[in-house]
């Protein structure tokens, strides 16, 4: 993974002086989070005499993170390291979509529908999915969860869609 002359120019979007892209980007992201936190906590009260205000600790930690982020970025500039990691879009995309679908349908459509649909959506995240077995396993798992959570664990979960209950 070292930046040998043959490999370095290959689709690197970073400027040349960044030698450890992973750390460089990681450090910048940490600094961005810290800056955001500093902004978000700027409306909070600071020190009053020698007692802490609500904003003292958040700003303290944010400042610390800012410094650390700068340090990591510096490491990214001054040391040799790896290129930016490759991301795959398929897995993250469908898993996120499945989670979103679950959160949007659980209230109105009940657990059975929400679990089954998001199971099928999540299954799209892998190229190896075989649909018949996926549907069978999905149905079994949904049935298992429908028994486990409301009955065995006594959690108040609505199983069926709201319109069917009414």
């Amino acid at each position, binding site marked *: 993974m070292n930046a040998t002359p043959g490999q370095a120019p290959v689709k690197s979007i970073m400027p040349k002086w960044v030698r450890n892209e992973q*750390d460089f980007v*990681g450090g910048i*992201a*940490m600094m961005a*989070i*810290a800056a955001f*936190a500093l902004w*978000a*906590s700027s409306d*909070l*009260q600071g020190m009053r005499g*020698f*007692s*802490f205000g*609500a*904003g003292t*600790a*958040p700003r303290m*930690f*944010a400042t*610390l993170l800012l410094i*650390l982020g700068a*340090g*990591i970025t510096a*490491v990214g500039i001054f*040391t*040799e390291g790896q290129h930016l990691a490759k991301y795959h879009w*398929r*897995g*993250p995309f469908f*898993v*996120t979509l*499945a*989670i*979103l679908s*679950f*959160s*949007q349908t*659980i209230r109105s459509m009940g657990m059975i529908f*929400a*679990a089954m649909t*998001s*199971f099928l959506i*999540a299954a799209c*995240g*892998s190229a*190896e*999915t075989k649909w018949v*077995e*996926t549907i069978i*396993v*999905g149905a079994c*798992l949904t049935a298992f*969860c429908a028994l*486990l*959570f409301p009955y065995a*664990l*006594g*959690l108040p*979960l609505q199983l069926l869609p709201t319109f069917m209950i009414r």
Partner: protein
Amino acid sequence: MGDVFSNLGLGFGVVFQFVQWTPAFLGGTSIPIPVNILLCLIGALVGTLVGVLPGIGTIATVAMLLPITFGLPPVGALIMLAGIYYGAQYGGSTTSILVNIPGEAGSVVTALDGFQMAKQGRAGPALAIAAIGSFFAGCVATVLIAVLGAPLTKLALAFGPAEYFSLMVLGLIFAVVLAKGSVLKAIAMIVLGLLLSMVGSDIETGASRMAFNIPELADGLGFATLAMGLFGFAEIIRNLDAGGESDRQLVQNKVSGLMPTAKDLKDSAPAIGRGTVLGSILGILPGGGAVIASFAAYTLEKKISKTPQKFGRGAIQGVAAPESANNAAAQTSFIPLLTLGIPPNAVMALMVGAMTIHGIVPGPQVMQKQPDLVWGMIASMWVGNLMLLIINLPLVGIWVRLLRVPYRLMFPSIVIFCSIGIYSVNNAPTDVIIAGIFGLIGYWLIKHDFEPAPLLLGMVLGPLMEENLRRALLISRGDWSVFVTRPVSAVLMAIAAALLVLTVLPALRKKRDEVFVESEN
């Protein structure tokens, strides 16, 4: 010494508690049910079941199974969680022996010799020795916790806010020192965790901090939500990346002949003893206790062995020592949690999260106010270990079959299970979305070699650190030197500083060397 026995007695009393169950269909006849033992058994079983699934580590297992304990009374919930924890650990060693995929970092070294043994058709003895070693280590560790518990609690009660703050700093520094990879990144993760813990309302003034008027954030980020996002969802996404199916070489030989021979036992007995001692000591230290312990135990065995060339080719000591160390460390890591209220690693941080959900603030007060809870949990550790020994060996066949479950079916199931679990905590759909966001953040962090475990530790310790820092400065009237003028605090701070310098120095030198090499070229 009498104290220890009476405390353990109390603990076993709690574990062996019977609850009268009067089902309607029996017409008034009541049956006594040992609820806590059953919970311990279920926890150990379910923990092993999930821990065996490849690609799911201990932290992810405990995080995923957190919600199923929410409906229980506090004592039962903690006993079950502890059971899940050992189960997951044991499951991890099973996978490393049978498929060469260590479920978690702690059993990486077990895979070295364990998998070789399995290939030679000796999977049975390997698994049995792992279980026996773990059980022995568990027994020793339980006694150790019982002995150290009371005096450490007394010590902790004498601590003022300044000492507490310094102790937490030391704990976090330990976690950084023992974490793998970049020191800077590990510290950054802890600070990010501290920062995330600030979201929500301020304890003293009640002011809303960084919540952006989102009602779900008003009480702060849910700990369970964050943990399941960072470990449950993020791990799934990462595993999908890696193509979960590719490198699974399952041992096809039938697992037969479980019992180790007399020679096996004789060979591994001293290794188990040494592993237990090493693990017990290293487990108390904050940081990656169990991981370091198993590595250290393996290295030690190899060093003092008369036949070091056998290691890596199926030496039974290479399974016995790390497994014992691993389990001893897993249990002694409860000591700082129960006595000082400071979680030494991410799994213990999860335990704190679970305790908080049940309204228990871990720390020395718990030991005094709710002795049944603490001692019940300690006694349940021993019972849990015994159960693992009894149930797991006959069930090895089932675990092997579970290993054949393809990842393409497993990951959607985990997504659903986690989603329902998170939703059921507060019946809040927003929590599920927040967990999803943290899943993506966790994926990004892993991709950039940031370890999410220290983040969790920071998240748990954040409110405690802030509170003690505030109090210490209030008492000292704003004088920051209080942390170095009070003797105990000064010692703790000095150790922390020395550790940090020690870790950074060689790293600096190495990095510099690399730069020098570069500039010469």
